[in-house]
């Protein structure tokens, strides 16, 4: 069986080599894939991330692309659905011939996609998936899935500390989206919050896309916590904040990184005043590289960059840089270079943050906290 497989692989390799060697010029073109939820409930984040990714490609191509050719990108919509995602990976690799992929946003989908991509020896760099479970599935020292920002473990810990120490909330209720993303953050938050001396009054999950929280919030009010921590996406977060205001609940609300969006403030209205959210990037960032990105993005798109465009930009920039350093469009070689990008600056995080991937494929930096004041997020300085 093994020999048969080897033979098949050799034949396939031979075929692909002939295919590659025919048009010699195009063989050197760097083809990259992008997987994002561009429709479905997570499409709001997906389309913002795409802007960051496209901006990274545009910037790279203005600087000569890779291997003397513009970088070619194939974008697939995975709809936030693992099955669609896996199909999209196969299409990107087999039909479009991409050698590395930036994606995706929904953690559960990223976990499914990277399993397949790994079989093709195609590395992936997260475009927003936060759950640490996806990078933890990597073999230490041999990662195929990378994330250029801290995962749920670090974010949950940071938020737990901030809630307890900065916001002075001793008793918290946790509401989390029933998904890998929400659950991994909520569990981590609980662990670290309790370890630091805080008290979790209750943990309650809700389904992705949930819109009505009156009954849940009625219970929250009865428990009289100091704070509510929401681990979920922006749309449900906005509803929770808005409806808390309607129910007359005056409790500090803390949100996970997905809620770092101006749209949330618009949708939740005045109730968002005082809302605190984990933030890895703001246009007003003290990160010099990030500030340059924010300025250039504003000039190109006529609007402010946000955490989504920032992480999309970082995801694609690291991939292109790794490919340039690898010198050839080859997945395994790009992966080798990704592991050595410790000197490459990121736009997210405090000043001087670089793409220093650890042996599990994650990057650690201090996550900030932003608080809404007068309808604008105000970034608390990094410690």
């Amino acid at each position: 069986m093994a020999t048969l497989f080897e033979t098949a692989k050799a034949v396939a390799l031979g075929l692909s080599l002939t295919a590659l060697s025919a048009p010699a010029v195009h063989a050197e073109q760097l083809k990259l894939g992008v997987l994002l939820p561009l429709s479905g409930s997570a499409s709001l984040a997906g389309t913002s991330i795409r802007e960051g990714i496209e901006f990274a490609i545009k910037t790279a191509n203005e600087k000569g692309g890779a291997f003397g050719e513009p970088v070619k990108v194939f974008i697939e919509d995975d709809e936030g659905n693992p099955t669609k995602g896996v199909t999209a990976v196969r299409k990107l690799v087999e039909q479009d011939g991409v050698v590395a992929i930036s994606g995706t946003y929904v953690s559960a989908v990223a976990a499914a996609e990277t399993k397949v991509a790994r079989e093709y020896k195609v590395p992936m760099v997260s475009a927003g998936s936060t759950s640490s479970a996806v990078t933890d599935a990597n073999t230490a020292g041999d990662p195929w899935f990378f994330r250029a920002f801290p995962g749920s473990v670090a974010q949950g810990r940071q938020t737990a500390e901030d809630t307890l120490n900065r916001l002075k909330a001793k008793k918290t209720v946790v509401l989390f989206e029933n998904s890998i993303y929400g659950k991994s953050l909520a569990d981590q938050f609980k662990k670290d919050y309790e370890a630091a001396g805080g008290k979790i009054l209750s943990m309650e999950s809700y389904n992705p896309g949930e819109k009505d929280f009156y009954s849940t919030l009625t219970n929250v009010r009865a428990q009289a916590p100091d704070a509510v921590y929401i681990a979920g996406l922006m749309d449900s977060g906005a509803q929770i904040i808005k409806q808390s205001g309607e129910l007359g609940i005056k409790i500090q609300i803390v949100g996970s990184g997905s809620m770092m969006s101006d749209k949330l403030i618009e949708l939740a209205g005045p109730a968002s005043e005082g809302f605190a959210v984990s933030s890895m990037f703001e246009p007003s960032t003290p990160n010099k590289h990030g500030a340059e990105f924010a300025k250039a993005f504003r000039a190109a798109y006529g609007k402010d960059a946000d955490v989504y465009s920032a992480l999309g930009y970082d995801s694609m920039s690291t991939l292109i840089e790794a490919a340039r350093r690898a010198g050839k469009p080859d997945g395994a070689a790009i992966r080798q270079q990704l592991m050595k990008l410790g000197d490459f600056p990121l736009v997210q995080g405090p000043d001087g943050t670089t793409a220093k991937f650890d042996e599990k494929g994650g990057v650690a930096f201090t996550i900030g906290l932003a608080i809404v004041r007068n309808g604008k997020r105000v970034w608390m300085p990094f410690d």
Partner: protein
Amino acid sequence: MALLPQFLANGVVIGSSYVLVALGLTLIFGILKIVNFAHGEFYVLGGYLAVLGSQLLGFPPLPALVLVIVCMAAFGWGVERFIFLPIGKHDPTNVIIASFGLSILLQNVFLKVAGPEPMIAKSGLPAGAIRLGSVFLTSERIAIVAAAAVTVTVLLVVLRFTWVGLSLRALSENATVARISGINVRRVAVVTFMIGSSLAGLSGALMSSVFMVQPGGGVLVVMKAFIVVVMAGMGSIEGAIVAGLGLGVVEALVTGYLGSEMRDIIGFLIVIAVLAVRPQGLFGLKTERS
């Protein structure tokens, strides 16, 4: 027990929205025997029209609702005339498939035209919480209950006491008898579709000031509406009212006392239990037809 009044109030608000969506669905099914899977997208379209009227055109609440109803009636006419009628001519079951296709088509049109960002309609009603004893509500939520009550009353009066209502009910009972009695089935079909479509749009418009409008927002809504319609007995208006309010209250109580992850499980368990005991639904007539 202290929280019970708030849970019940939540349930009545959500239940009223279920009633509004289910009414149009059950009307279209009961009279035209069309299972319209695109009903949820009709609801979303109503929401977007409300955003258009209230935000972009700056209409006050009532004219905005009139805009929604007029546009949705015209939309319903077009869908019936140009999609369902020609497709149903060859094989009525094709209409089900066509409605699925229409659902996906509309979702993607919303995504292209309105974008993925959620939108919220301005209700023009006074903002902020209204406190009734231990119960908190907003004027928008009270408006949903009021609108559901008014709509249901108007619909029941029209169906019971007018010739239009009699022709609709006659057609839903027996198309042949309706035809030989002088009822123009084509015209009734169009009227029914326009009313059903307007009802979906109206509920979407009302909900768009409380919740947000999103391209995919109709999927869950149509599921809930189907639960209500099946539980009520396909085609039963009175049943849809009882089942819609009942489902809303049960969901609110389950969410309140057991947690929201149990909510949809309980909803479907109730449907299965109801159908096991009464396959014709709560209000379905148990008459044999030849």
